[in-house]
Structures are given as structure tokens and as C-alpha cells.
């Protein structure tokens, strides 16, 4: 009995975090472009996490590409020091 009780206690506490986590996962899902398209149905949290990982990777890739382009811009264009500073700040 004691084991069962402790188990229920654990599950109870984990349930609370489960709610929090499901809440956060739904927020995360809202940030996903492809998930937004079918926001009607909720994806399983593992799927959301997977999609999040993929999305973050794609964003990283995009940031890299953009920083590359910005650096090119910085090199080619004759910009004011202010503009250059801004772009540099973006590239950081």
C-alpha cells in the first residue's frame, strides 16, 4: 500500500508538471510554422519537440545565411558608419 501511495503521490506531482509542460508544449507548438497551419489538432508533445528541434535548426541555418549576406552587404555597400554598426550588431 505504501508503495502505491507513494506512486500516486509521484504521479500527482508529475501530473502538475505534466499540465505545465503540456501548456508549454502548446505554446511551443504555436511558434512552429508548420504546426500553426494545423493548429486545430494538437500534436503529441514528442512530435512538437521534434518539430521544434527541426525548426530551431532551420532557423540557425537561416541566421547563418542571413549573416553571410549581411556581411557581404557590409563589404560591398558604402554605408554610413551608423548603418555599418547596425549591420554589425545584427551579425553578432
Amino acid at each position, binding site marked *: 500500500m505504501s508503495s502505491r501511495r507513494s506512486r500516486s503521490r509521484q504521479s500527482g506531482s508529475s501530473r502538475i*508538471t505534466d499540465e*505545465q*509542460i503540456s501548456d*508549454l*508544449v502548446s*505554446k*511551443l507548438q504555436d*511558434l512552429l*510554422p508548420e504546426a500553426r497551419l494545423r493548429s486545430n489538432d494538437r500534436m503529441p*508533445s*514528442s512530435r512538437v*519537440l*521534434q518539430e*521544434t*528541434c527541426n*525548426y*530551431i*535548426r532551420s*532557423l*540557425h541555418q*537561416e*541566421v547563418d545565411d*542571413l*549573416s553571410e*549576406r*549581411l556581411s557581404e*552587404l557590409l563589404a560591398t*555597400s558604402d*554605408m*554610413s558608419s*551608423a*548603418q555599418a*554598426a*547596425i*549591420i554589425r*550588431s*545584427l*551579425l*553578432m
Partner: protein
Amino acid sequence: MNDTANDLAELLWDNGPALRPPPPPFQPFKNLMRGAADDDGDDAVPWLHYPDADTAPLPPDYCAALLSGFSDLPPHAAAVESREPPCSSSHGAPVVPSTSAAPPPVAKQTRTSGDGGVINFTFFSRPLQRPSGGETASASAAGTSSVPVESTVVQAATNRLRSTPLFCDQRMAWLHPPKPSPRAAPPPPPPPPLAPTTTRQRVDTAATATVTQRLPPFEARAPDAPPPAATATTSSVCSGNGDRSQLKRRDDNNNQSAEWSASPDELDLDDELAGAHRRSAARSSKRSRTAEVHNLSERRRRDRINEKMRALQELIPNCNKIDKASMLEEAIEYLKTLQLQVQMMSMGTGMCVPPMMLPAAAAAAAAMQHHMQMQQMAGPMAAAAHFPHLGAAAMGLAGFGMPGAAFDMSRLAAAAQFPCPMFPAAPPMAMFAPPPPFPHAATTAGEQTPSPPGAADAGDAPVVPPGHERREQPKQTS
């Protein structure tokens, strides 16, 4: 009788906590038994005021009780009990004693039967005797035809101590006799001696049927080796007996020796407890099975999620959060900042970016998306905090007198929510762009995109210092 009473008390104690008491009573009983046996086959008579027939019935009752109990419990339980009388005793003191008590009587009976072939003895003895030797059984049979049949069955069962089903049948036969059993005082006397031995064995707990068998010999001192086996069987039966058997035993005990009475009560309790345990075990096993299946699937799911969480953690820089919730919060913030960053960078590159254009675009966007901005304001700032360099960029914009910096942030936030808006919105903004601060930018903007009409309003906005704009935005949006 006084001695017997003492013995009984001792026996009771034995059943309970202490095993020590048994020995003393045991000896007396043995003496009595010996005396009875030596004197006559009627040994039982002195002990039991009731006739032999009564004694014989008692065992049957036990059997019946056992059977009833067994009916609920499959043969396994019965078999287990029969096989492991000692164990049962160890688990539950009461059960053991009863079993032990039962065996002894049998042994005595067998002896008695051998001596006089009394019917009463025959009942008990038959089962006992048969295992030990056919002689006693035959004698008992001669004594009472009806009884003998039952006894024979019992004997077979006793012989096959291991085969529970047989016992059940035998017990059934016994059931009829049981009523008389209480009367049979004789059987009790024999039990006492056996009981002590049995109690000792029980103490050992580990001792099995074999142990009980060994004990019987001790008790028996009497000639019949087989009786011990029979006693063992009887003991098993007793343990198996249900409440009914216990009740009968109690009656018997009253008639017979204190040992019996004591043992029955204990036995009853033990039996009930044992039954409850078994039932609960069965239920719990089912529950546990379903629970295990559920736990397995749940565990797999959690493992999968944890795996993804770990992957996510690797993707998030400086994420030392251990618990899932904060991990997810971190991931959400990081995702937002990443989206913001991408928006800003794409703005910079896509527009060929003279920064001044950004402010203008931001102003236009602000005009067009007040609500969105308002909602997003909090987000962007948090993102800036998360990503210092983004914040620095914003600061840089503001520092350059780009009123749009604040707007930018809000705009980016909005963009974060709506990935696409940035670029579509950008062209119009470029038109307004000719913001005062950077004439150059204005020119570039004008060159890049035709200025849409009505952009003028937006263009004015940028002039306002960032701080003011921020304050104003809320007002506008509100």
C-alpha cells in the same frame, strides 16, 4: 485433566508467540497417550469422553471445512497447504497448531485402531493408518463400514499428502462425520503430543511435510511408522480447513484437549487471513499487470519526450536547466529570439538595408498593426534580454536617432508571430522611409520603391524619439 488443561493453555501459548510451552504439554500428552495406547485401544476414551465415532467425525469436519475453503481456492492452494503444513504454521501460528494437533490425533487413532480397532479410532486411524499401514485401516473398516469408506479416502489423501484434490474429496467425506467429531474426545489426546512436535516444526517454518512426518514418529514412539505420514496429511488438511472446520474444531477442542481448541481458533484466523491474502494477491496481480502495461507505454512515451528534450537542450545555447518546464520555457524564448533575429537580419539584407529604412517600415507597420505590436511588446523585450546582441542592435538603432527602433522591436515581435509580414510590409515602409534622420536612407528608399500615397503620416512618426514613440504606441494602440 488438570494437566491437560495446563497443556491446553500451553498449547494456546504455542499457537501464539511462544513455542516453548509446547514441549512440557507435549510430554504429558505423550505420557497420557502412551498410557492410553498401552492400556487399551480406547486410549481416546479417557481423553475424550465422547465415543470413538465422535472422534472420527471430527476429522471429516475439518476436511469438509477444508473442502469448502478449497472450493473457493483452486487445488493449488489446497495442495500448497497440504504440502507445506509447516510453512503455513510459520506464516500463521494458528494454522500450524491446528494441523499439528490434527496429525497427532490421527497417529493416536492409528495406534488405537491397531490396538482395538475401535470405530472412532478407525475414523481417525484409517486415514492415518492407511498411509502408515493397511492393517490399521482394515481394522478400522471392520469397526464401522460407513466410516471406513471415508477414512479410506482420507488415508489415500494422507498418503498422497501432495495431491490436494484427493484431500478435498476426502474432506468432503469427512464433512458428514465432522459433527460427531466434536464428540470424539479420544482424538484430542493424541494430538497434544503431536502438536508439540508440530509446533516445534512450525517454529522451524522451513520444515515441510517431511518434517512433520519425522515428528509423527517421535510422537508415535508408537509402532506405526505410517501414522506419522497420516498425521502430516491431517495437519495439512487442518490448515486448509475453512472457518467451518475451525468451528468444529473448537467444539472438538472443548470436548477434546485444549490444544485442539487453541489451534482451531488460530487456524480459523489463519485461514481467513490466508484466503484474504490470496484473493487480494489475485486482484493485485491483475491490477499490477494492467498497471505494468500502462507504465511501460507511459515510460516509452516519456523516454521519447526526454530524448527530444535532450536534443532540444543541445540546440539551445547556455541552457543549463534541468527540469522540463524551465527547459521548455527556455526553448520557447530561444525560438522567439531566433525568429526575431531572422526577421531583423532578413530585413537588413532583404531591404539592402539602410537601417533608416527599417524605422520607416517599422512606423508603417506600427500604424498598420497597433494591436499586434501591443501584444508583442513584452515578448521582444524579453527576447532582447535573452539575446544581448539583438538588444544591442535595437539600442544601436535607437542611438542613431532611428525612431523606428522601438517599432522595430515590436514589429519583429509581430513578425515572430506572423513570419511573413515583414517583407510584404517592408516595401511600403521603404516608401515612407525617407525619414528625416538619414537623408541618405530616404533617397535610397525612394529609389528602391515607389512611395505609396498616404505614407506621409507614417513618415512623420519616425521623427519622434524612440522613448516617446514607445509611450505613444500604447496610446495609439489602445
